[in-house]
């Protein structure tokens, strides 16, 4: 150890006040800044622009950064291309930890800077990548153009050249650990105060100007007339396949008690058949079915050759505060007609404290009839907390298993949500 402490003061100084270590540091920084290998990482839109930056038109290889490594061990830079969600935050942190230092982070796009378009009223997006990783360079845009990415890359190069790479191993910034608060509205208040001062100063300046030039006459601004657009009558849809009336007659022959679902009709004051005809082709046949007939009706719709609604287009739910509607959308790819039907599920009575986290309704599964229903029902379970009895694999689809609450319910509360102030 003795030598290690004594040697540097002897070897280090160079003539002219510089030190040896600075020269070495300069070379290392030069090498590091010109050879930044990014990680192949992208979550959404920005990833396409990142790839476009590597493509012939823009060509990131000019800066020596075209070596996109798939293994985090071998890369220097992680370009956070795309939204980071709470679920992805863990794996992303792991990726960053797996990278070998010195490592740099570029936050590409609005989502990684602050949450961007997903800042307000959102429960799953991380509001800024700097809450989980130390970010070196921020590139605004949604998504930023490849040129902007290059600008960010060049700024990172400049930053690397200016760090003292040998004395500090590599600099890690502090991570922004405060809980997500509505920083924007605070900023807006400060902005308002500034604006007021500015207005006042301007008024004073204007008054002074008037005093000095009493004869001054301002130019009158000419308004550009906004183009006027005509009202155009709407052309109704022209769907192929059986008409709503034919379908409705076929279904009513088997299930006579069903009611049409159309809010404007005002609880079926007109007879259903006439209503169907009056609604025209823009309307897709949509009716309510009691829970006990739900599976029987689905089976009928799928297996009747006249209807042959063999494709489950979608299965989703709506929370009407007092009850859930599970909406099933069916399509016949051979004949062309569409049929929607819904089952109304009253919410179970539970105490107000338990309500947000409790499963409030259940309905039989359709995954035996359509394999497509498997994931759709898992999604509904995940988002609404509706249980599908008989489902082979009832797990959450999107959120983590320990996520509290069911996001698409109207009574859902989450600490991550920042309410829009206006």
């Amino acid at each position, binding site marked *: 150890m003795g030598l290690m402490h004594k040697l540097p003061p002897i070897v280090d100084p160079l003539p002219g006040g510089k030190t040896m270590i600075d020269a070495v540091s300069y070379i*290392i920084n030069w*090498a590091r800044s*010109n050879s930044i290998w990014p990680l192949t990482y992208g979550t959404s839109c920005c990833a396409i622009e990142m790839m476009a930056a590597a493509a012939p038109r823009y060509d990131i290889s*000019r800066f020596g950064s075209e070596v996109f490594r*798939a*293994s985090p061990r071998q890369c220097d830079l992680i370009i956070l291309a795309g939204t980071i969600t709470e679920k992805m935050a863990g794996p992303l942190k792991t990726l960053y930890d797996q990278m070998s230092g010195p490592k740099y982070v570029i936050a590409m796009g609005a989502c990684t800077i602050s949450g961007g378009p997903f800042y307000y009223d959102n429960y799953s997006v991380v509001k800024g990548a700097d809450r989980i990783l130390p970010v070196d360079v921020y590139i605004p845009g949604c998504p930023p153009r490849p040129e902007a990415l290059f600008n960010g890359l060049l700024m990172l190069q400049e930053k690397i050249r200016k760090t003292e790479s040998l004395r500090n191993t590599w600099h890690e910034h502090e991570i922004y650990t405060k809980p997500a608060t509505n920083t924007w509205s605070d900023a807006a208040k400060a902005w308002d105060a500034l604006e007021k001062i500015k207005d006042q100063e301007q008024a004073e300046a204007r008054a002074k100007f008037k005093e000095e030039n009493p004869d001054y006459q301002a130019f009158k601004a000419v308004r550009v007339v906004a183009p006027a657009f005509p009202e155009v009558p709407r052309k109704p849809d022209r769907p192929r396949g059986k008409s709503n009336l034919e379908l409705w007659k076929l279904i009513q022959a088997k299930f006579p008690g069903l009611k049409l679902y159309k809010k404007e009709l005002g609880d079926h004051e007109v007879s259903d058949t006439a209503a169907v005809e009056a609604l025209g082709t823009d309307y897709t046949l949509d009716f309510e079915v009691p829970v006990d007939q739900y599976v029987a009706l689905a089976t009928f719709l799928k297996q009747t050759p006249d209807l042959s609604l063999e494709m489950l287009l979608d299965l989703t739910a709506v929370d009407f505060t007092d009850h859930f509607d599970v909406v099933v959308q069916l399509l016949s790819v051979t004949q062309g007609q569409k049929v929607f039907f819904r089952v109304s599920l009253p919410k179970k009575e539970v105490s107000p404290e338990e309500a947000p986290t409790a499963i409030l309704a259940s309905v039989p599964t359709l995954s035996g009839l359509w394999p497509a229903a498997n994931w759709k029902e898992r999604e509904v379970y995940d988002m609404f907390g509706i249980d599908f009895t008989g489902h082979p694999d009832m797990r959450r689809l999107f959120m983590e298993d320990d996520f509290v609450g069911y996001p698409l319910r109207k009574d859902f509360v989450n600490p991550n949500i920042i309410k829009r102030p206006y």
Partner: protein
Amino acid sequence: MDLSTTNFIGDLVREYSPYSWVASIVNGVIAIVAIMAVGVGPSPMLIWWERKVAAFTQARLGPMRVGPWGLLQTVCDVIKLLFKELITPHGADKLLFFLAPALPLTGSFLVLAVIPWDHNLQVANPGMGVPFIIAVSSLGILGTLLAGWSSNNKFSLLGALRCGAQMISYEVSLSLIMLFVVLMSGSADVREIVLSQQGNVTDWWIIKAPFLGIAAFVMYMISATAELNRGPFDMSEAEQELTAGFHTEYSSTAFAMFFLAEYINMVATSALASVFFLGGFLPFAFPDFGFAPIVGVVASINGALAILPGFFWMAGKILFLITLFMFFRWTYPRPRVDQLMSLEWKFLLPANLILLGLGAVFIAFGLILP
């Protein structure tokens, strides 16, 4: 050939030193330095060249910013890699983990040792050069296998197993093609093989053995690409399937060693191809076909070409072959691992055996070009 006639410095030391072991050591050191220079020296240039070739294929520019035409790009990369953090993954077998990157380099250095670079430029010339090459080139497999095994990573292990299977398989056909050349030239001595191709272009084995030569060369290139683990046969890395294959867990210097080994291997393999098929260090010479009016012109052109030293010709041929390898990599998609294996065992191996048989027949009936 005796070493003493090729080594001027060795002679000098032997003359003035009372002990013979001094000469041996000096000779050894010189040999090692020479191999290092030949192997490691051009590698950064080759990496730069590869990036430029890739850029050319993909309608891009390639590195432009560091030095003229980005020539210093690889220098940057190497310095950066040397000063990066060296990570040993949790649960890795430390000894094997750091031994693995050294092995592929060793194998290719040993191959480089027996390559004749010029008439009087060769580190060692064992009489059984070809079997020696076949033996030592297998060391690379060991490195990859160890790397995959010791990393404690499933992707690495999969990559290593793929690589092991692939390299051992393609070693077979590579050896058979080498045997074919040995059969043609009648010697297992690398130097003799080169000297057996003296004359003009038609005396190179790629043309001298009618049809068989070109077939053998094509199969050599396919097998060598697989043996090098380069695209399109880069099963062991297969970025889209196994992230980075056997070297997923390697960072910094250890990764740089693998990176370097790939290019040194490429130099060694291309050098062998040039020795076996393209006349090694012999200069390019046009044939005159005994056609009287052009004999004089051809002779003078050939004379002019022969002024360039053998080392230059060797390097030129190697660069040509390496560029060929690079174009392969940036043009073709990757076959699946089982398809690659069936290509070897169901097509290349039988074809090579037939080639060997036909070669023997050609020799026996004197069908080789004069």
